[in-house]
């Protein structure tokens, strides 16, 4: 019944843009999972909390610069500073986690660092929620100009454009670092074979720390974008996006950087557009609460046909 008038091009365009925006956040966070997995074969479950720390760092900077009252050129300055602060805070957190919780366990059985990762994740989310905020939720001030870009009947808000553009730029820079710099080469070498890389004179520890830091910086950026877009942040906010981003990384082919990006967009779209598509079938009317069910069902389907993910890992391309 409601189906007929929902099927306007504008509606689909809105939902696709929404899917791509959420997808860009998943993609940015997924990069950290996939890089660390590529290098250490470790699922860094604390990565969602690294994302949360970035969101709070950005929130603090925006608040310190005047919150709601930021306007004009100061908006650009504030956003840049917030992103830098988030990148630094997340990067520092990830380096500390690696040093304290993972490095001592590097040669332990595979499950030990995994449990350590879950422990760090629980610790950080509760530290912020119960230690600092007493369970409260904070809200990003909506400083971004509210306008939209119109193409005929189709509209995209400036915020969504900025989000998609900024995340693409960040991912491009990361890809360039991995593919074209000495640091990137050392990371790829360690991913291929830690022992051989060490024999060739690569500083393995430095490469591993760099992997954590780069992934964390992306997650920190994602935290600020998340806050700007969805507004509510809390200590436990990293859990769901963390699980989703991890899923995106597996879907794309864990260990593969382009895979994480594609997986992120796929999951974002599956969530927003998947349910609406099913609702186009006459007689089907899935309520909004089913969006995750639809997204994850699609995911299982993809994995059945491509068990190693969309981008099957190629030798030498890991990292």
């Amino acid at each position, binding site marked *: 019944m409601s189906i007929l008038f929902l099927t*306007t091009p504008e509606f689909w365009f*809105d939902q696709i843009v929404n899917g791509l925006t959420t997808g860009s956040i998943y993609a940015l966070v997924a990069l950290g999972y996939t890089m660390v997995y590529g290098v250490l074969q470790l699922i860094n479950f604390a990565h969602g909390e690294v994302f949360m720390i970035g969101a709070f760092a950005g929130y603090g900077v925006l608040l310190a610069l005047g919150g709601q009252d930021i306007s004009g050129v100061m908006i650009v300055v504030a956003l840049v500073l917030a992103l830098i602060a988030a990148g630094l805070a997340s990067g520092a957190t990830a380096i500390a986690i690696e040093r304290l919780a993972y490095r001592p366990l590097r040669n332990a059985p595979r499950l030990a660092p*995994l449990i350590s990762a879950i422990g760090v994740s629980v610790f950080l989310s509760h530290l912020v929620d119960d230690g600092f905020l007493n369970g409260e939720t904070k809200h990003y*001030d909506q400083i971004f100009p509210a306008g939209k870009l119109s193409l005929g009947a189709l509209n995209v808000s400036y915020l969504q454009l900025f989000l998609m553009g900024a995340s693409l730029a960040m991912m491009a820079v990361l890809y360039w670092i991995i593919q074209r710099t000495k640091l990137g080469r050392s990371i790829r070498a360690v991913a291929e074979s830690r022992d051989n890389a060490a024999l060739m004179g690569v500083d393995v520890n430095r490469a591993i720390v760099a992997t954590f830091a780069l992934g964390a910086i992306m997650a920190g950026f994602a935290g600020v974008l998340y806050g700007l877009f*969805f507004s509510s942040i*809390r200590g436990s906010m990293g859990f769901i996006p963390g699980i989703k981003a991890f899923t995106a990384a597996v879907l794309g082919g864990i260990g593969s950087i382009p895979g994480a990006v594609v997986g992120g967009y796929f999951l974002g779209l599956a*969530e927003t557009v998947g349910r609406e598509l099913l609702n186009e079938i006459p007689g089907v009317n899935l*309520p*909004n609460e089913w969006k995750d069910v639809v997204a994850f069902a699609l995911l299982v389907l993809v994995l059945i046909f491509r068990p190693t993910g969309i981008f099957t890992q190629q030798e030498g391309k890991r990292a």
Partner: protein
Amino acid sequence: MGTKRTLLRFGLGLAALAGLAAIATACSGDDSSSKSTATGGSAGFTAAGYKAAGLDQAKNVTVDAGANIKIGISSALSGDVKSLGLPIADSAAAAGDGVTIAGHKLEFVREDDLCTPEGGPAAADRLVKAGIVAAVGPICSGGTRASLAIYDKAGITHISPSATAGDLTTPARPEGPYVTFFRVPVLNSDEANAQAKFSIGTIKAKKAFVVFDTDDYGKDLSQQFQNFFKAQGGTIVGSPAGYEKKQTDFKSIIANIKAAKPDMVYMAGFYAEATPFLQQLRADADLKSLPFMGGDGIKNDELLTGAKDAAENAYLALPGTTGPKFADYKAKYKDADSATFGPEAWDCATIIIDALKKVAKDNGGKLTIDLKALNEAIKNTDIDGASGHIKFGNNGDRAGAIVRFFQVKSGKYVEIK
């Protein structure tokens, strides 16, 4: 291949962990309730069905000389609903400030029910074990529904200041409503009816889009609103959209709202989610001036400080009114004006205290309280409270209902008369 194997194993491990945790929680839950049954000495549930209310078998409670009389408070003291829950707890406790009954002081035992179906029974268990004679709470409908049987088994009468779901006082069980449960708030059905009238009469809306929290309160209130809105000539457009607590991404729902072209959007839920919802709604230039109507869970000062400009012009319904004893309440609790359900909480405690004064018997310094007589005295309440005149009608619901409306203007709630 190795990767896949590891992941699969890991997934199974996680599932197993989750399963174990669930079992552990379930077991500990069982454990504590069976313990409280043992101390209460009542029959409780059997395979053949419910036998008798704990009230019929409840013993008298004796308060030793010099000891305090304990009254429980089950409220959300932490988490997302705490800025609703803390003022409720403080308001209830304020009613006992300086009150003594035959020389015994009152002591309020506070337990955190988190406003959840898991937290409610846990708080109820702890309160019963603490030796309370009656309780204020739980504050939310989901937590209340899950706790009714625990208070009933223990023979403890409890009064909720804010649980508004319709079926709490008409549960689907052969023995009928729980006799140990009373409540002072105006019900969801009364609130929804008034909201529908206001939407059609004052907002002049014909087509509404409904958004709701998928908990008991949100489901019930939104369903009642839809029924009343349709009965009064309105149309519900699009499919009502449910969301979960802590959800922050409302963009997909908002795209549906835009496509359905309503005259207004109706939300049944709490301010924690209403804040990002309104911010995302107002960020869309086309929906900037779409009228928004919310209820008592959303009308909170946190909405104003969190959503700021996005909250502007929102309509909020607030059941209840201020009664003759509001000044007494305000004298004891300085934030009385902004405490949603604060007057009701003060009244809950006042009702319990008045009933205690009637039934408590002094035995040479010791105080004896007959729990059944206390229940009876609460049932016959007829007082002027901070939230208006209070009498209990059928099934423990409050008789008579008043709903007020507010609009956010320049960052403040302004009452629409």
